[in-house]
């Protein structure tokens, strides 16, 4: 090979932005990780409540059923509103909320609240749908055994959906990686931020391509781990 024409390897070595890429990757991982944690903490109970108050699962007592219908209606509306707003718009709309919660709207901290608020409703719907897939016979058996709602949820419903839940967490984590890159537009930090600043504003195509490559690798890794866990936990 002619030494005058630089090989790909030379280009990789010559690439000066590895430290930035490293920091940005770490930032992305922190953003998605922390957001994922809060998404689960918020979305899982929300999904369970949506399921328990959904039509067909309401109390035979009319008063209680009415309260459940109202709860379902309000939560369902809220979830739909948050899901129908494009994430980019949500990011901007939530700036005051983010400042109130985190004290800043910039960087890794600044992107976590909008990420969680943007994705938790999506996750909650996934959870609601998963719970709907649980065999009704299992619910019937729990009622017949005299289980409380809490016991039914924790000892039957959630264990039965665990493989599906892990799948939902995987899908959500990947969506979060994508969203977290988007938050770069408003100065959110991470790989998206890097791509915007170097790739878009400074026309540095190499940085942008490397950023995309890293994101692809991250997504593949998350999917791989998720699939492995689902397979291990599935006893069907």
């Amino acid at each position, binding site marked *: 090979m002619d030494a005058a024409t630089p090989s790909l390897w030379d280009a990789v070595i010559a690439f000066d932005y590895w430290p930035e890429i490293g920091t940005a990757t770490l930032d992305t991982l922190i953003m998605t990780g922390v957001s994922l944690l809060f998404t689960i903490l918020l979305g899982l109970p929300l999904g369970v409540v949506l399921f328990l108050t959904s039509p067909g699962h309401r109390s035979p007592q009319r008063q209680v059923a009415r309260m459940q219908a109202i709860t379902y209606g309000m939560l369902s509306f809220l979830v739909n509103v948050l899901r129908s707003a494009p994430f980019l718009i949500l990011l901007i709309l939530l700036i005051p909320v983010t400042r109130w919660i985190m004290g800043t709207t910039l960087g890794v901290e600044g992107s976590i609240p909008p990420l969680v608020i943007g994705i938790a409703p999506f996750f909650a719907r996934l959870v609601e749908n998963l719970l709907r897939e649980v065999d009704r*016979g299992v619910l019937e*058996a729990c009622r*017949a055994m*005299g289980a*409380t709602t809490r016991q039914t949820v924790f000892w*039957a419903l959630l*264990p039965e959906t665990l493989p599906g839940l892990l799948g939902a967490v995987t899908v959500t984590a990947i969506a979060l990686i994508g969203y977290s890159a988007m938050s770069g537009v408003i100065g959110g930090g991470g790989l998206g931020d890097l791509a915007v600043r170097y790739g878009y504003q400074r026309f540095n195509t190499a940085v942008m391509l490397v950023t995309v490559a890293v994101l692809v690798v991250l997504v593949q890794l998350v999917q791989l781990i998720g699939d492995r866990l689902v397979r291990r936990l599935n*006893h069907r």
Partner: protein
Amino acid sequence: MIRIEGLGKAYRTPQGEFHALHDIDLEIARGDVFGIIGRSGAGKSTLLRTLNLLERPTLGHVYIDGEDVTHIDGDRLRRLRQRIGVIFQHFNLLHSRSVSENVRLPLRIAGELSTAEQTRRVNEVLELVGLADQARKFPGQLSGGQQQRVGIARALANKPTLLLCDEATSALDPQTTQSILRLLVDINRQLGLTIVLITHDMNVIRAVANHVAILEHGRVVESGKVLDVFLNPRHETTQSLLAEIGLETEGAIATARSGSSRILRLTYRGVTALSPVLSRLSRESGVDFAILQGSVGRLQGSPYGQLTIEMEEPDDSRFQQLLVALANQDVRCEVLR
């Protein structure tokens, strides 16, 4: 044990009220195996579900051990349900949990035993249903019959005095059905457990029940001891359900040679069933029989037989002699033609 009085259940539908159950009165004694049979849509599942109040009656009362449970709720209702075991047609096991965890679930729900005691009890009931060696498996790895055994073990875990079986064998093949039914009979004898089961199959009733109620359009059209109902069915639904398992005579008459032959239905039970009644009578009276249809076996441990026989034009005096002879042998005899 259980008394049902004037029980009714109506549902509101867009087409108006739908009455699933009408004015049902039943009494189920302690230690009974009580079968409720009917075709699909007869209301048998609804009736069974009123016993643990998964279905609230709109009229009437359910008494369990003398206590009116029709309107209890909250914690009392949960306590009641914990004392009533239920097994289901489709087993309704948790596929994410091992066999022993499935059986432990009702114990955890009741929350009365320590973990060690729970484990002991789980092993006990798994032993009872013959699955002690499968405890660590998952339901998905078991056959249908084994899964139903897990269901039974789970139902028995809390030492219930009442076991409800909702079409417990309908999803199983005939051989497995027999083994599950045998297990139910064993449990009934060993533990003195009262069993209420619903089914659409008279074979199930014949195999395990000692009392039966026939349900049609939400009403009990006939009920009584299995032996009485089987040998002397009065309602047409009962007769047609019996016909499905070859215990009915109408069809048999049609197969008889036409003309002046006589057709008799003989019903006998107890030791008579074991003695060679027919051949002796035939020899003594000189009348030849053709058996058109029949069933000989045991119902609840007591031998019985029911035969529809045809004989060629015996003269009247010999025929009367024969009837007397049959009566002397403790054979109930109906002249069908």
